[in-house]
């Protein structure tokens, strides 16, 4: 596999991280090294192996469908960059 500058820019957009052209080139070089390491995985045939998503293979717990949390929106919104009237403020999306 060979990554291109276009891949870096596409992935950066998917990840919502602005990258300059110079940064893209540096990142590309570093990703080449990282993917060379990662590609070692392709040396083994794992077709018959069940993927392991989790250390304990535990099943999710169920609980009663009752309210367990209290309303703390004032506390939680006190750390927001911009909030007003219980709403988070962001730049206008719809004109």
């Amino acid at each position, binding site marked *: 596999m060979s*990554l291109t500058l276009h*891949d*870096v820019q596409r*992935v*950066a*957009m*998917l*990840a*919502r*991280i*602005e*990258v300059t052209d110079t940064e893209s080139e540096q*990142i590309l070089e*570093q*990703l080449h*090294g*990282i*993917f*060379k*390491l*990662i*590609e*070692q*995985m*392709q040396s*083994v045939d*794992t077709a018959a*192996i*069940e*993927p*392991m*998503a*989790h*250390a*304990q293979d*535990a099943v*999710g*717990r169920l*609980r009663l469908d009752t309210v367990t949390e209290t309303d*703390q929106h004032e*506390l*939680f*919104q*006190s*750390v*927001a*960059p*911009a909030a007003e009237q219980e709403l*988070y403020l*962001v*730049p206008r*999306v719809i004109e």
Partner: protein
Amino acid sequence: MIDSSLKQLSADLAARKISSVELTRAYLDRIESNNAAINAFITIDPDASLRQAQAADKRIARGDAQPLTGIPVAHKDIWCAKGWRTTCGSRMLENFRSPYDAHVIERFNAAGAVILGKTNMDEFAMGSSNENSWFGPVKNPWDTEYVPGGSSGGSAAAVAAALAPAATGTDTGGSIRQPAALCGVSGLKPTYGVVSRYGMIAFASSLDQGGPLARSSEDLALLLDTMAGFDARDSTSLERPPEAYTRRLDEPLAGLRIGLPKEYFGEGISADVRKSVEDAIDEYRKLGATTVDIRLPASDLSVPAYYVIAPAEASSNLARYDGVRYGYRAESYDNLLDMYCKTRAQGFGSEVKRRILVGTYVLSHGYYDAYYLQAQRIRRLIARDFAQAFEQCDVIVSPTSPSTAFRIGERTADPVKMYLSDIFTIAANLAGLPGMSIPCGLDAAGLPVGLQIIGNYFTETRMLNVANVYQKQTDWHLRRSPIASNSS
């Protein structure tokens, strides 16, 4: 006082030989005098710490103290602590004051322990040298030209410099054990699911696990008694009966079977590390243990699989930092999309961005099977290797890290070289097994060497016993860094 074990401090507090206020103030004074040299703490709040210490003294006077009541503990700045700035080593959370406590912080508070401060770390726990912190690198108290390891480097350095009697850390691929090794302290990563992740800022959720760092395994056991426990708010927290991790510390080791994995003793280990680890193994033989050669054939694939799984999970976990609900927001931007992109470009450091990009790529359309699924299959192979090995042995012993501490700046240019620092620690995270590191020697330059002990699931009590009996026979864990030897 700074040479006392937690057990001794606890006894002195109970006997009113010292007060928690005196103890806490003594450590705050040491931080004041010595932190500038090593940069182990991001935040201290003496008033808040001393308030807790006063409350602890009252509790001791009332006669309802627990073992950790009045003991100051430094916390990695990844744990949310109500009212405390909780940065995770990132500009993104530089001014974030947590509105709630992590489960682990709740438990320390309930035990009457004192929050001594928040320790420096690699940003979002991504790193093996503590050079990725927005708050500057941590320096190794044994030699300040060298890294302390990472990502819990501030916690390890704080204990090694005697700026804290004990600390907490987290370990996703070695982030407790590797800095413990490089700083000459003891550290334990429990079985995945033993310590709640609630309020522990997420990096790679299927691998992250909190644990203690301290001078001795006896201290670790005391800390784990408080840290471990079921918590319904962490969906992967395990419902198990509470365990007293201190209960078997002194059992004799006769009959202990130690597995020595061929793959962990190959090329690439520095001669000094090899010698110290072999000496430690000889010591175990003298203590009645037998050794058995074992194989972990999929070991080579642990680093590659980790660098798919951890970045994939990180890219998803770190999507929450968008400048809307909390944390950093870029100052100027054109529109909402631009606000996200600029906030994340400015708020994250280069290693974090690199891993988010790797993770986004491996999860993107058309690549999922080749990378993420393949990594999860290899993860199964690695877990199976361990399961087979534990049929022949009780614990597995190896070097924690192939080398002692390296120089600041030495590996920053090459991410892959840095990633290979964790070559012996990552597999335990992938399998979810408990692992620890204890000091077992010094290299020619006087830098500490760590011995890794990996146990089967839920065998922390036995591992702490294995470590403690060794520490009763040796004094490597009692050796002090130059900064710890400062009287002020």
